[in-house]
């Protein structure tokens, strides 16, 4: 197994799967401004996907493109964290997930900006500006809704309780993570935990939400061993055009 290819798939698939989920709000968000914000967030994530998967395809060297990787792989070839593939549910859960992810991405991409791999560093530095902007919005929204009405507080707490067991997967430490650290490409994701904890603590406390007291973490998305049943349904929608009309171009 090529660890760099595997590592790049993880970055690209995280951006792609969350980007697609976020785009599902296009046209149906609770307010016009939120609709535009969600669509723009999705656009940033899809843009980042093109960079990560484009590089992954080059590293793989089998003549595949970023589009081939996005549209012609099956569930078990995907390397995204499980938290990003579960359905959006309500607006609160969508923004809570965005926040949990952004709070990871900002320190993560900051670290990757110093990668020994110039391409990784370049993509990370570009994505970091967008992630920083996303975090500003997602953390503010989590606070506004958590510290809002009784109902919005309850729904944000429900969202947090639901997503929490999925968040732990972001802090992996497997053979690929280790190989990337040894090569100076990236620190192991597990080393991001304390910075993430601090950000989460601050925001949740301002949002009047309580951090669930379980350390159980689902896994299987980042290594492709066990995705949720939701990813297949998502891919069926996302990939339908390329599956029905192979090679179709815009």
């Amino acid at each position: 197994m090529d660890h760099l290819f595997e590592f790049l798939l993880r970055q690209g698939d995280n951006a792609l799967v969350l980007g697609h989920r976020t785009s599902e709000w296009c046209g149906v968000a609770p307010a016009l401004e939120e609709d535009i914000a969600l669509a723009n967030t999705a656009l940033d994530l899809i843009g980042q996907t093109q960079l990560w998967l484009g590089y992954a395809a080059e590293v793989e060297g089998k003549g595949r493109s970023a589009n081939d990787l996005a549209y012609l792989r099956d569930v078990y070839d995907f390397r995204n964290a499980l938290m990003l593939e579960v359905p959006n549910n309500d607006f609160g859960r969508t923004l809570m997930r965005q926040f949990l992810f952004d709070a990871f991405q900002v320190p993560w991409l900051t670290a990757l900006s110093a990668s020994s791999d110039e391409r990784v560093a370049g993509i990370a530095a570009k994505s970091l500006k967008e992630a920083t902007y996303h975090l500003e919005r997602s953390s503010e929204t989590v606070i506004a809704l958590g510290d809002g009405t009784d109902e919005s507080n309850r729904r944000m707490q429900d969202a947090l309780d639901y997503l929490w067991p999925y968040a732990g997967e972001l802090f992996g430490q497997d053979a690929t993570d280790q190989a990337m650290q040894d090569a100076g490409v990236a620190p192991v994701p597990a080393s991001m935990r304390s910075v993430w904890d601090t950000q989460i603590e601050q925001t949740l406390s301002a949002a009047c939400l309580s951090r669930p007291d379980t350390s159980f973490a689902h896994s299987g998305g980042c290594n492709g061993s066990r995705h949720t049943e939701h990813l297949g349904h998502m891919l069926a929608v996302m990939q339908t055009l390329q599956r029905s009309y192979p090679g179709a171009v815009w």
Partner: protein
Amino acid sequence: MTAVSDISEAQIWTYLESVPDPEIPVISIVDLGVVRSVEITGKSVEVTITPTYSGCPAMAVIAMDIETGLAKHGITDVHLKTQIAPPWTTDWLSEKGLARLADYGIAAPQKAGGPACCPRCQSKAVERVSQFGSTPCKAQWRCTDCLEPFDYFKCI
């Protein structure tokens, strides 16, 4: 038809100055800071561009507009190169570009994270409507004096 060998890089920059940004046509792609370099090698011209946002859909149009813009001057052997590092920043907007944005009703980016004043009445009483706007590079603000909503160019 002009031979590329008779044209200087400075001349190419001048031609690119007249290629408008497809989404904010009052400024050129040079004013926007997305043209990073121009290099003439033999008979061909290489133009290096950088995306504003990684998913900005205008980039494909910008690439096409550069090709057609240069073709108007007889330059057809054009190679476009995309470069993402260092990442685009609003610091690369030109002075001329900033002034034109303001005239057009788009508040210029500020390090403080919000517009200095309403581009219509110059009032400092402004509030944010949304962190995002009609294009990836803008946010929605509103003036609480003249009550007009306006675009603010996000500072990144």
